[in-house]
């Protein structure tokens, strides 16, 4: 049986011959082995699935509103605007973290000593902003509850709680990923972590965009 010892396939390998995962996507440049490419693909496929499920929620919202006579509009709690800004900010800090990471990892190869500025603080900042967002969402719930809007009060409040809760769950998953990255970076900062970091970043930015999408939907529809 013909076979060969393993050579990492990737951008270097002949196109169409080696594991030819899509390469055009953000962060995919970091992929130097099929495994890393797969991580990139995986995160994008996952993002598609998550978006699909939220699309289902939103279409349910639209159908439910269209078919019903009992739809009452909901005044969204002010704090949501702040939360949105916080989440945008967290995306910025994460990008800052990745820039630092890029510099540091480049210095691995370059001889001589520019000062090694750790990307970690930016990552911690991102995690902090994330947790602020979660707290903010919780405050928003409290505000609604204080006005007597609970999960089953009326369709719009039902959808508000469901959408925010689902988004919150996915965001907590993102924060878990960030914490995991933080633990890895705390140990050492090497280019091997690039794909993991960029995958985490893709997910985190998606969660941010998803929130803006949901926020618009809720602002218009609820």
């Amino acid at each position, binding site marked *: 049986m013909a*076979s*060969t010892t*393993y050579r990492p396939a990737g951008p270097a390998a002949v196109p169409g011959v080696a594991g030819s995962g899509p390469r055009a996507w953000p962060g995919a440049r970091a992929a130097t082995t*099929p495994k890393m490419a797969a991580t990139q693909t995986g995160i994008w496929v996952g993002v598609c699935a998550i978006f699909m*499920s939220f699309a289902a929620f939103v279409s349910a919202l639209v159908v439910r509103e269209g*078919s*019903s006579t009992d739809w009452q509009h909901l005044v969204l709690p002010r704090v949501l605007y702040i939360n949105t800004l916080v989440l945008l900010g967290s995306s910025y800090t994460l990008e800052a973290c990745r820039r630092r990471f890029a510099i540091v990892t480049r210095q691995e190869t370059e001889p001589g000593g520019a000062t090694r500025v750790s990307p970690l603080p930016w990552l911690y900042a991102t995690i902090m902003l994330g947790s602020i967002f979660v707290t903010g969402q919780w405050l928003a719930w409290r505000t609604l509850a204080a006005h007597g809007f609970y999960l089953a009060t009326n369709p719009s409040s039902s959808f508000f709680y469901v959408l925010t809760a*689902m988004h919150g769950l996915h965001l907590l998953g993102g924060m878990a990923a960030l914490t995991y990255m933080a633990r890895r970076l705390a140990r050492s900062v090497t280019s091997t972590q690039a794909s993991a970091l960029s995958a985490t970043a893709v997910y985190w930015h998606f969660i941010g965009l998803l929130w803006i999408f949901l926020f618009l939907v809720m602002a218009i529809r609820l």
Partner: protein
Amino acid sequence: MNDASAQPEIHHLAPPHSFIRKHVFSLDHKVIGLQYYGLALAAVFIGMVLSWLMRLHLGWTSLAIPGLQHFSQNGAPGGVITPEYYLSLMTMHGTIMIFFVLTNAPFSGFGNYFLPIQIGAEDMAFPRFNMMSFWVTFVAFLVLIAAFFVHDGPPISGWTAYPTLSSIGKDAGPGEAMGQNLWAVSIALFCIGQLLGSLNFIATTLDLRTKGMTLARMPLSTWAWFITACIGLLAFADLLPATILLILDRTAGTSFFNPAGLVVSDTLQPHSGGSPLLWQHLFWFFGHPEVYIAIVPGLGIISHILPAFIRKPLLGGMRVMVGCMIAIGFLSYMVWGHHMFVSGMNPFSAILFSVPTLIITIPNTVAVLIWLGSIYGANLRFTSASLFCLGFISVFISGGISGFFLAQPAIDTYLHATYFVVAHFHFVMAVAAIFGIFAATYFWMPKMIGRMMNETLGKWHFWLTFIGVYCIFMPMHYLGLAGNVRRYATFTDNFLLPLIPVHKFITVAALLTGAAQFIFLYNLFHTRWWGPKAPDNPWEATSLEWSTTSPPPFDNFGGKHPVVYQDAYEYGAEGPQDYVMQTTPGKASAT
């Protein structure tokens, strides 16, 4: 090369040694594939027993089934199945078969085992996700089975769980309290498991193909699993929210599906403004693609196995069959409305949905014609696997034909909820998919467990099953034409009484056909421990799984990745060996 440890490590994980890591919480895609297969085997057995009970009740309504009262005192007092228990059996049969058999075996089971091998990878892209997806599915199965043991029994709302019957709660009837909750939770868990699995399949196929394994050289089975994963990713991502909303309506008092002013058993329900049709749209947007999640792997598996036994590539090569499968997967998202022709939705949309539904028969017809055209001029070899392939083609035709009727609202308005539909989807989806599973089992078991299955028993299993399924499901078409409504626990209407003899015939056929499956079970388990050792390539097939040992080592190819030089199906070559393996260097002399 059985001993992977002697080889350079290409697997980023070390081979496991403890029993638990090896056989229970294993990260090895081969073990996980076998686990899925085992789960499906257990599920299909339960589902078959349930169908036996249902058939017995339909044939002989007041028959006391000995011992059944010990299993469910309320459901079968004195062993006689009550109408509500019949509906419970029906619901569980449908749910178990569709989710835990037709989705698990051909897609998750064989897919997990052979997709990485057929593309020359050492494992799935995300082994941990892979393990998670199986164990989540396993828990989902346990939760579903638990419904048998709660106080008022399993749900009675069918596998489609239409609100408001499924969303009101206990007032709607027995089984609609805890049983329906368990059902919903189980389905939600199952969705999560499938999403993880599909993600894995897609990433693996796109990025872990070995040197030379271009998309054009991928075996059709891998193509089918890849396409199925793409379908499943969207389908289950749509069912999960629907199920969450259903759970909320049942437990949190929300009104997504429950309209106002419902009076159930003289109790006014505290809901307002929901839309039962919303669930039907969400459900069938998943539900119809789910049909193809069940059958597309079958198409791929048959297209992969058939060439090995007709000793020639499929007519038109890869392109046509792949095109058919992609077209089916794509169209499957535009046709969900044909399940709702008589649901009270806008009659105009029925026409809109009927056209793509009829169009989707075109790629299916082309696929059948390709198979037929490929058999022409072949050196057809008869094995259990090839017989089940031929049987698949036959039942797939029989099932597809009846689709022409149900795709037209004007005829569906007569046939919609009759046994004609039962016959249709059992033929085209259940029986066809099961034949695909059998073909795959006889074809791949030597590779999976390293032992040859008994051909004589296999062929007997085929003949009995083939005759049996036609005896069971063909008469159901006639029942449907006579207006026999489905999901009836017993037939008391005057126009149904004359049809009961037909039901008795079907029941007998079902019992015999079911009994024939024990030949298969015996064959499988006897082979597992006492079968003769299997060579690496017993069928003289070409694809990568046959270029490694049976069973393959932990990292599939013993410390290396194969390099692919040939297309997937280089059969019919000149000379002593009429096939060229994908790993054989040089230009294939084959067609």
